[in-house]
């Protein structure tokens, strides 16, 4: 295998593969993606894969997510069907007292052009007849949806490979050194040299940063998800907590735990999740659960994406974020612009690593 590349991306998940693909559209130099296991064996393969804009706060972060969601239809045209569905998103609330909070949220979004409706009980039940009739209302946004994460990453990889990107999988990076103004990436399967290095290690960002003495404050959050047997199509929207996949399975999950890299599932959380799902959609009580799995999500210390140049390092870039599925088309676009043009079409200073001091 070639050991010299213009650009190396560490991490082949939805963020890393998204960057590699977008880069390969314009960039004819050599690109290598290194993955510790195989793309989709980490966070990207253990997600409900919402493309989710509304109730991200503050509104500038929602705006950022919206730009990414708007790229999805074009992405499908370029890389193939990733089962992207703009179902619209519902975030139900059960207490009338929450309505005021919802109104405020909608108001702050209106200022930046994101339309969010606050629905009455009747409106919710009209949209989603199987929702619990005790619901008080919901916030609703038409831009939310979901995607099939396996298709998404697979298509990213295929398209990137067609454009000449190389992948080296089951290949853990063990050391990164700076040599004569270049980066030397030492891995289980040998050392690779590159000019540009992009750190897209997701949940392992902190560990990868440490190899260079860069502090990337990303923590791990565990989410446990239940999978129902395939049911007839009956849920129309992506609901904050559950969605129905194309084959009829309902994915349910809204939990967040600090468990490091431990991907076990626990009955405690499984039961809470089942209770949540039944509270939202009482009919699910009758459904059989076929599986539970958990995923470790990346969560930057302040919750917002960490994007762009690494201060004090030439040609070193970082992309570490929560909501990688939602943001991957936009992050891929922006990091490509940064490398090719030296500037981005929308400002990303807000997301610089420098904010952590």
């Amino acid at each position, binding site marked *: 295998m070639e050991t010299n590349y213009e650009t190396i991306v560490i991490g082949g998940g939805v963020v890393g593969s998204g960057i590699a693909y977008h880069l390969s559209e314009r960039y004819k130099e050599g690109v290598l993606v290194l993955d510790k296991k195989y793309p989709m064996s*980490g966070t990207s393969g253990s997600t409900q894969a919402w493309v989710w804009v509304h109730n991200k706060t503050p509104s500038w972060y929602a705006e950022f997510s919206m730009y990414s969601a708007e790229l999805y239809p074009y992405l499908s045209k370029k890389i193939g069907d990733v089962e992207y569905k703009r179902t619209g998103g519902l975030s139900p609330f059960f207490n009338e007292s929450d309505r005021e909070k919802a109104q405020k949220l909608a108001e702050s979004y209106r200022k930046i052009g994101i339309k969010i409706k606050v629905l009455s009980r009747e409106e919710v039940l009209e949209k989603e007849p199987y929702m619990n009739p005790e619901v008080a209302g919901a916030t609703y946004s038409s831009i939310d949806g979901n995607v099939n994460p396996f298709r998404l990453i697979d298509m990213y990889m295929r398209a990137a490979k067609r454009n000449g990107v190389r992948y080296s999988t089951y290949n853990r990076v063990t050391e990164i050194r700076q040599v004569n103004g270049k980066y030397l990436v030492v891995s289980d399967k040998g050392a690779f040299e590159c000019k540009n290095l992009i750190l897209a290690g997701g*949940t392992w960002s902190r560990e990868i940063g440490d190899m260079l003495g860069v502090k990337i404050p990303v923590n791990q959050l565990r989410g446990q998800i239940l999978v129902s047997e395939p049911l007839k199509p009956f849920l129309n929207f992506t609901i904050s907590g559950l969605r129905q996949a194309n084959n009829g399975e309902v994915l349910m999950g809204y939990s967040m735990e600090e468990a490091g*890299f*431990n*991907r*076990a*599932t*626990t*009955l*405690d*959380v*499984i*039961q809470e999740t089942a209770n949540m799902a039944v509270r939202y959609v009482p009919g699910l009580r009758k459904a059989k659960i076929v599986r*539970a799995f958990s995923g*470790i999500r990346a969560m930057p210390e302040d919750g917002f994406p960490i994007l762009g140049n690494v201060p004090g390092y030439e040609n070193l870039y970082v992309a570490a974020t929560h909501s990688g599925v939602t943001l991957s088309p936009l992050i891929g676009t922006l990091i490509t612009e940064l490398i090719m043009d030296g500037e981005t079409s929308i400002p990303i200073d807000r997301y610089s690593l420098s904010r952590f001091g």
Partner: protein
Amino acid sequence: MKTDVLIIGGGPAGLSAAIETASRGLDVTIVDEASQLGGQLNQQTQVLRPLPSVYEPMRGFELANKLIEQIKGFNVRLLLNHRVVGFYADGSAGITDEENVFPVKAKKIIVASGAAEKAVAFPKWTMPGIMTIGAAQTLINRDFVMPGKEAVIVGSSDFAMETAIQLMDVGIRVKAIIEKQSGALAKEQEKASELSKNGIPFYFNSFIKEARGNGQVEQIDIELPDEVITLSVDLVCMDGGRAPILDVFYQLGCSFGFQEELGGWVPQYNHTLQTGREDVYLAGNAAGISTQGPLLLTGMIAGISVSEELQAISPAEANEMREALWKELGLLEDKEVYSGRIKHLENFTSPLLKDQFIS
């Protein structure tokens, strides 16, 4: 609910582990998804031999009754029609009666989850009327239901031959035995020859090409070495071998090795039948596919080891008994299986798969 020993699975291995632990005064709970104890023994009408020296040869369902009889003499909590569905953060097992889930906190767990049959896939193999040999045997002997009138058997292991005979005994016409290999795999040649004597053809180097039928199997095409023949059948019994049932071990975070002679992926264990998790032991087919005699012995070994850990028996006594049982296991068990088991023990500290929940 609290218990000293939680035994998952109430088949021959689980029951013999329960006898060893409960007889020494430990508080024992058995959970099984079936409505009665005994596991697969209940539909086994064949004579089982060799059994451990404490048992004379007997039929499967007779052995089940004998084990259940012994259990009744002790104070064992039975959770029949219950399933283990997961584990709580504090290590308690989550057990359901299909209505509610409740926690059971055990000092030690013995997993005796048994084996699952593997299917033999061919085009349209999921049609009604096509089933594993174990399913056919269960329908006949446990449920007293005729699974069909005209059958073929795919496979020629001892179990397949035994089942073919049982099908004939209840008046099902066995039209052929189909075997991919070039000869019968059964070790007990007399079963194969009994079938031959009854005029049942053996098709070697052959396999089912396709099944056909309207809503259920009606015809199959068999690919013979030099031609394709079509038979009318309403029952196809397939023997794809068996593999340990591993779900609970995964959930417990045990480590695994791969041992072809034991049925593929098997949890790692040492000579006390302790898995990679020190509070979890295993027994029976879950510890490697074997015959009923060895299944009982592994159950006894696991039960003795747990009794020792919980100080219901002295280490010296436990060692002596374990040694004797391992010796008997070496004599009783199929040579290949036993040598696979010994290899598996040697790999205890170097499992192929561990920490599967650590990203």
